[in-house]
Each structure stands twice: as C-alpha cells, then as structure tokens.
C-alpha cells in the first residue's frame, strides 16, 4: 500500500539532492546569480567609474595591489571586481533569456511539427537544418551584422542560432510519446489534437527539453561572450565579460591578471551550469538514477 504517493518530479528532486557535485554547482550558480542581482549593493565601485589615478592597477594579492580594487582595475581605471559582478548580471540575463525564448518557441515548433507532420514538418525541419549547417558563431555574427549590435540583438541572434536543437529535441520527444498507448487511450476518450499535445504529450516530453535548456544556458553565455569579444555583443561601456576580455587583451603581456578576472568568471559560471545541468539530466532520467 502506498500511503504517500510521490510525483515523478519529487523523485527527480530527491535524486538531484543526492548528487553532491550537482548540488555544489547549483549553489555556486546561485551565488553568481545573487552577486549579479545585487551587484549595485555588493560592488565596491560603479562599473563605469574610471579611476585615472589607478589605471591598470594590480589585484590586492599581487605586489603593488591594494584592497581599494580587490581584482585590480582595467586599462582605463575601472574596478575589475565591480565590472565582473555587473557582468554576471548581463551574462546570466542573456543565458536565461535565450534559454527561455528558445524553449518556448522550440517546444511550440517541435510539438507543432510532431502533431501536424507532412509538408509542415518537412518545411520547419529543413529550415532548422539550414540554421544548423552554418557555424553557430558565424551565423550569430551575420544576424548581428544585419540587425545591429546591442544586448537585445545579441539575445535574438543567439536564440535563433540555438533554436534548432530545441525544435529537434522536443519534436523527437513528442513523436516518441505520440506512439505510446496512453496517447491512443486519450484519443479514445475524445481528446482533441491541441489537448493531446499540450496536456498529454508535453508533460511527458518536458524532461529532455529541460535538460537541453539547462545546457543551452551555458552555450548562450559562451556565445554571448564570443560576440562581446568580437565587439558585436553588448556595447561599451557595458561591463560584459566577453567585451572585458577583448579590452584587456592588449594588456595580456604586461598585466595578465586583467584577463583572468572575466575569463575565470566565464569558466566558473559555464562549468557550474554544465555540472548542474548534467545532474538535472541524471535526475530526470530514471535509467541513470541510483535506485
């Protein structure tokens, strides 16, 4: 007798909690997110203020550094720590808004292609193949070149570049669910096509979509940093990690720590998202779960 039925999501949560690495990664990610959200309060300086008396100052732990600028300053005297903290805000915003946009449109397109099939399926999937055939950064550059460089356009460009994988994953998940008995049973109870897709198929197809979304956040952050590095992402003086890397590139020989701050920020964030995302996948896939 089951007295306290647990939902599949509660099971997944319990499995996730058992994965220490994933929980740690999630904690780090939460810390980065909090730092980004509360950047105005935790950052020691404004990310835009140029301290002309301390241009290219070394970090506090290096010889000649002071605690006034814990991570030093960049080439025009802006506090690196403050810029990295504000940059977390921008990078995570880009990452999660790209993921949200691609999940929504991708799942909608994927379910629609699975439900409608025929020429519509062929048309949408071939369009996705075309997007996939162009290297992602090149396509993103092309889109930004057309619509102009800005933060919003960066998000748009990256969302378009990463749309196909969501369409493919949700279409595949929907197709495999559509062939199952309970879908036929729902049809036998008189369920309409829309209800069938949204109420019957979608809840059962969410697990793979969520996993791709989680991993998509980190890809979006890298892609945004790449665009920023090329000067096609967020525009100066916005404290964006990729743009910060590009700015400090000229100082690589003389002041290598200047590159380290945004570089390590990108590394830690992406790593945390990937490990947490892997944990999510393991938790949602019963086959990979410890029983």
């Amino acid at each position, binding site marked *: *007798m*089951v*007295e306290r*039925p647990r*939902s*599949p999501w509660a099971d997944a949560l319990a499995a996730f909690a058992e994965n220490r690495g994933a929980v740690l990664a999630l904690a780090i990610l939460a810390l980065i997110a909090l730092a980004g959200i509360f950047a105005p309060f935790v950052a020691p300086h404004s990310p835009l203020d140029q301290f002309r008396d301390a241009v290219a100052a070394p970090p506090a732990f290096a010889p000649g550094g002071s605690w006034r600028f814990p991570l030093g300053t960049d080439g025009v005297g802006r506090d690196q720590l403050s810029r990295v903290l504000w940059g977390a805000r921008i990078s995570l915003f880009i990452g999660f808004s790209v993921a949200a946009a691609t999940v929504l449109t991708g799942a909608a397109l994927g379910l629609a292609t699975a439900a409608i*099939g025929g020429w519509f399926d062929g048309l949408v999937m071939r369009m996705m193949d075309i997007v996939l055939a162009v290297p992602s950064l090149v396509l993103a550059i092309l889109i930004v070149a057309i619509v102009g460089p800005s933060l919003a356009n960066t998000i748009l460009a990256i969302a378009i570049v990463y749309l196909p994988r969501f369409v493919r994953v949700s279409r595949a998940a929907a197709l495999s669910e559509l062939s*199952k*008995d*309970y879908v*036929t*049973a*729902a*049809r*036998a*109870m*008189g*369920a*309409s096509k829309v*209800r069938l897709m949204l*109420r*019957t198929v979608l*809840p*059962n197809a969410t697990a793979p979509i969520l996993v791709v979304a989680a991993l998509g956040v980190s890809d979006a952050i890298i892609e945004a940093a790449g665009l920023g590095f090329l000067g096609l992402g967020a525009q100066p003086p916005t404290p964006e990690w990729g743009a910060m890397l590009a700015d400090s590139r000229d100082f690589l020989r003389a002041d290598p720590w200047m590159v380290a701050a945004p570089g390590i920020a990108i590394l830690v964030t992406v790593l945390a998202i990937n490990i947490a995302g892997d944990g999510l996948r393991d938790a949602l896939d019963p086959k990979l779960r410890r029983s």
Partner: protein
Amino acid sequence: MALLDVRGLTVEFATRAGPFRAVEGVDVTVDAGETLAIVGESGSGKSVAMLAVMGLLPWNAKVTAERIEFDGRDLRALSPRERRALVGKDLAMIFQEPMSALNPCFTVGFQIAEALSAHGAARGAEARKRAVALLAEVGIPEPEARARAFPHQMSGGMCQRAMIAMAIALRPKLLIADEPTTALDVTVQAQILDLLKRLRAETGMALVLVTHDMGVVAETADRVVVQYAGRRAEGNAAAALFAAPRHPYTAALLDALPERATGERLAAIPGAVPGPSEPRLPCAFAPRCPRAQDVCRTQAPPRASTGGEGYVHCHFPLPAPAGERAA
C-alpha cells in the same frame, strides 16, 4: 436496430511493399446491452477493425466500408469535433496494456476527472469526487488514496480497473475492450472479466470483447465472431458455436483449449497466420486447414447460413450435429 452496425469493413495499410489488407470485408453488429466477442489469433485484424471503428488508426491506414453506423449515426460522416464528442462518451475503449495506457505524468484520479470535465459532465471538486466514486465502483480498495496515486505505483490489474473506470465514467452505450486481460495474470483476468460482466449488467451497456482466448469468450460472450487473417470465418451465438463449430478454424481453436485436450499433447494448429508480405489464398486458412482441397486455393469460400443468426465462410464446413440437421 443494431447499436453498432459495421458492414464490409476493409482496412488497408500503405506499406513499402504495397498495400496490405489487415481487415477485409468484416461485418460487426452489436445490439444494445449484448456482449459480442471477436476471436482470432494474433494478426487476425481484430484490434485493427475496432481501432478503425474508433477512428484511431494511423494516417497510413485506409478504411473503407459499406456502412459504419453507431446509434444510427454514420461514423464516417462525422466532423472531427462531433467525433470527439461521441468517442469517449457514448463509445469507449479499453486497451491491452493497462500499465502503458495511462499517462505516467498525472495521478489516476486526475485523469478520470479530466475525462469527465472534457465531456462537460463535471468540473473541479465535483469531478474529483466522481472519479473517486468510479474507482470504488470498479472495485479498487481505498479509492481516495488510489486517486492520488500515479500509474507506476499501481499493479496491472489496478491500472486496468482504473482504465475501465475512466471508460465507463460517462456511461457509454458501447465499450470496446481490446484484449483487456491479455497482459494480466489469470486470477486478475477472472476479476476483470467479472467486473466487466457486472458493469454491463448494471449499466446496460453493450460490450465488444476482442480476444484470442476462447476461455474468456465462453465466460462472457452472447455472440461470437471468429476472424482469420482479416476475414470473417464464422459467426454464431456463443452457446451454439461452442457446441458445434462449423468452420475448421473455429474447431481448431476450440481443440487447442487445454480444457478440451484429450491426449498427452495439446492440439496445436500447424503453421502461422500469413504475414503482411505473404500472398493470401482465396481461403486464407487453406494452408493450415485439414479439410482444404484445391478449390480452397482458387475460389473464395461462400457464405453459408448455419441456422439462426449463424453463418460460416467455408467450402467444406464441418457437418452440423445430427439433431440440428433434422430440425
């Protein structure tokens, strides 16, 4: 007038090797409140015929028929919206694999309540209350707790009961049960059959039982249609069919029942049902038939009445018992 009246039903699947006729010229009539059993080996097109009636076949299936009428309405002429309103309400179906026929993402109670609200019978708390009452009606102990359980937390028999609860939620006039007991073990089979019999008696619905188990048929059916390789073989009242099978295939099926075995070994039917790629003889059963002669391979067997509502499609039917021939 018959509740379900299907004449000359043919279902063709477009396959790479060309069209494959899974069902060919099958008639099914069910009167209100009666139990009809459709019998045949796996691959006889029993399920496909019923799925065609429900409109649940995949897109590569082509359904043709002289007539498909339910309750006086032509099922082929219905718009999708009208069909959805009818299917699940007046015409319900339960499936072979109860464990996979329920949505794994939702609780059993939620799914039954959804069926009620989708057809506008009840909403919200009222629908949930009726879902619990339905679970109690199909003999699930602790229905309140079970309504909150997910399908994977219940046994196969429980899931099948829950499926039946959902199917009878809107008091259908006809319930099609597609091998409802095949995936269950024998004691549970008997319980499910008893449940179906009881519900039929209580609600007055008609029941179509698709099965390959002659024992199930003997226990529940009023009338029997025997199907082989997508074609009709024989049809009769259950008692008459069991007493005096006229088609060699029916006789072979009955002889294969362990209860009727006389020797040391069970009587088996040699060979197998022809697959999709194999050519069909005019009499599909001829290659496996002990009575087959040359004419069976060249000419389609004629339909012959066997008295009352009985009929047989065979060139050389088994003789009727002496008493009946005189009558």
